[in-house]
């Protein structure tokens, strides 16, 4: 049949994942009592919001053929330091400026080392993440968790709701919208795709590939900081132990499973939304079924592995240039 063939041809990863998400959602609605309640749905979107924001930042880097493993460390440590400074009595605007400055510097150093020193992104960001965690934890904050000072705007932010939906959901959607506009309609956003698809060709054509690389890592660091603020807002504190959790893998999982190829140049905000939806629904369902955290991690890691294998098959990094042969 013509129709079904056209359907199969258009069946890319994004659509498959979307269908799977809908199926899981349907199964959960039927099979799990208490899943389809307003409170639970809100808790799903709320859990996706922070993860989704982090995945947005990660995606911009991945589309440009990089990866940022320092995001979770930047997220937790920047906010922890910020709250600590507030607790120590520093004026809010000064503390914010100082922390934001630190975040920008980390993003800049990541980008600089990847772009100009040409160190592989995975090592640069692994090291910078570990450094950020170690330095802030040992030098700047005295304990693992830092509480939000009572009455501070971050605490108030956590309580804001509109139509019963927590504010971070709207912030996530707004950020997704902004990222969509950036990637699709601005010159710098377009450069991300050219550099991700073929960095050599992009450079030869006159695109400032290296400065743009730096920009992307700075962008990722800033999104991480925002995600950290939202985490602190909903929990009234930030626990730096999150750096050693599986959150980082969840971020990569959301991006990759949504169809953002690790080989670069592919995907967009829609993929992040789809990936975040699937992961959010799945995690929630697993929690309701009361699968233990150990098994949840096992399931997630299996899915991530599977997604990366599928990604490798769908988006091979080298299209067998070697097979062409010279004449």
């Amino acid at each position, binding site marked *: 049949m013509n129709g079904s063939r056209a359907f199969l041809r258009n069946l890319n990863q994004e659509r498959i994942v979307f269908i799977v998400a809908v199926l899981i959602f349907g199964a959960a609605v039927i099979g799990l009592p208490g899943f389809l309640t307003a409170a639970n749905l809100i808790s799903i979107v709320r859990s996706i919001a922070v993860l989704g924001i982090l995945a947005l930042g990660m995606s911009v880097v991945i589309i440009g053929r990089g990866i940022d493993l320092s995001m979770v460390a930047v997220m937790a440590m920047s906010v922890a330091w910020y709250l600590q400074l507030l607790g120590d009595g520093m004026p809010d605007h000064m503390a914010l400026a100082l922390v934001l400055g630190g975040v920008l510097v980390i993003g800049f150093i990541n980008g600089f080392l990847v772009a100009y020193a040409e160190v592989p992104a995975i090592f640069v960001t692994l090291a910078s993440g570990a450094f950020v965690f170690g330095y802030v934890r040992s030098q700047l904050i005295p304990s693992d968790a830092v509480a939000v000072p009572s009455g501070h705007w971050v605490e108030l932010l956590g309580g804001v709701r509109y139509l019963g939906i927590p504010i971070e959901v709207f912030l996530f959607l707004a950020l997704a919208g902004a990222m969509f506009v950036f990637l699709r309609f*601005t*010159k710098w956003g377009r450069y991300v795709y050219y550099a991700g*698809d073929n960095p050599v060709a*992009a450079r*030869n*054509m006159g695109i400032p590939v290296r400065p743009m690389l730096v920009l992307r890592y700075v962008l990722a660091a800033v999104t991480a900081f925002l995600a950290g603020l939202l985490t602190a807002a909903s929990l009234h504190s930030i626990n730096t132990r999150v750096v050693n959790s599986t959150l980082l893998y969840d971020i990569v999982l959301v991006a990759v499973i949504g169809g953002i190829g690790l080989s670069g140049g592919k995907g967009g905000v829609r993929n992040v939304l789809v990936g975040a939806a699937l992961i959010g629904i799945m995690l929630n369902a697993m929690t309701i079924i009361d699968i233990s955290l150990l098994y949840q991690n096992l399931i997630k890691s299996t899915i991530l592995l599977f997604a990366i294998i599928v990604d490798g098959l769908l988006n091979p990094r080298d*299209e067998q240039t070697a097979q*062409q*042969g010279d004449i």
Partner: protein
Amino acid sequence: MDPTVRPIVKMEQITKAYRSVPAVKDVDFDLHEGEIHALLGENGAGKSTLTKVMAGVVEATSGHMSYLGKPVQFATPHEALQAGIAMVFQETSLVPSMTVAQNLYLGSEKFLNRLRGIYISAQQFLQSLNFPVDPAAMVEALGAAKRQMVEIARAVHHEARVIIFDEPTATLTPEEKRHFFALLRRLKARGVSIVFISHALEEALMISDRITILRDGELVATGPTADFDREKIIAAMVGRTLSGELYSKRDVTHLRKPGRKVLSVQDISMGAMVRNTSFSVFEGQITGVFGLIGSGRTEMFKIVAGIYKRDFLRGGAIDIDDRPVRYYTPTQAVRDGIAYVTEDRKSEGIFETMSIGENLFGGFLAAGREQGLVIKSRTIRDLAEEWTGRLNIKTINADARVVELSGGNQQKVVIGKGLIQKPRMVIFDEPTRGVDVAAIAEIHQIIKDLADQGLAVVMISSYLPEIMNLSDRILVCRQGRIVEELSPVEATEEKIMYAAVH
């Protein structure tokens, strides 16, 4: 034929086509036992392809090959190596981070390998070949000549009876070359048969027993070396039959006059690839640049386009419109109106996942020609429409991804990506490589039109008819420098080739 010499390899009617374009056509070739056989021809004549078929690197489209009297067909280089045919590549295939000894035994290790054991046997083996190489040295620390020795030792170690050398002397110093030739003679004395591919005619005349010359994938001459001399070889290499319509004799009375001098290069150098060379490019004409592989022709112009950086000290000077420039990124060159159309469109030309329109738009964007703050998909569509029409890019629809196009149409996209930047100088590097005949004519027309419109056009090519047919002046490049400038009035294929080979 002398009945005492038997062919160790006999190839009959070998044809190899890449995407239905034949690289070699119906070639008969035989290699006698214990001879050094030089295989000569221009770039793209099919030398590498023929030997790759012999060594199992590529499979012949048709034809027969027999080895030691038995018909064979090698599916992989490994099979050929097992049988005793080894190929020493232009780019060495050693593992740089391993020691010489480890490389020697690579692929033939026992399950348990004692390092000391292989060092001792490697030492003995290298000594038996009279190679002064330390088996414990890292390959990455070795010079080109010693690496080659390791490659050769590896071939001998596998008891290869046939060794194919693809451009072995290109990277060697004169001293190293002498050692290399001595080695070839020693191998020959051991009964090894050798195929020697080279651009250096003198070397071929000096070392070889027989010579075979290919041209455009066909065998044009073969015979004992004593029957050849330099002039005869060059005549055979370039004497062309297939030219036909596409490369009809050019009317040299209507050369384009040089306009303003756009580019002036004085004494630029870059490492060992570009050595102290000077040249100029003028508006309104096509400057053809001829050079063989490794002559530095691409590197020179990549420096001009800001892709490579010339040496910081004693790197020479480049003037664009009498204004000295030193580019650190291609962005600066693009802003100055220089577009470079790459010879390697797959790895540095096209954006594979993107449509024709997005590819073209990339050039537009990079040149800073997008004025609006917001990019409209309409602009991309319009550009795609305009340029597919202008360059006659044949496609099912404008949303087609570039990978889905034929080589010729991909090349037109790459050209369009450059032209959309409104350059004043366009550098075409091998503009018709891997392009079908119909598209070649169209691309040539595009190049001519650009020159007629007053742009400065540079066309780098290793295909002589292309150079002869399009250029208004011809620069010949050899060993990292422009060695000769010829006018098409006086130039002949023989003269150009004479300047290009050493």
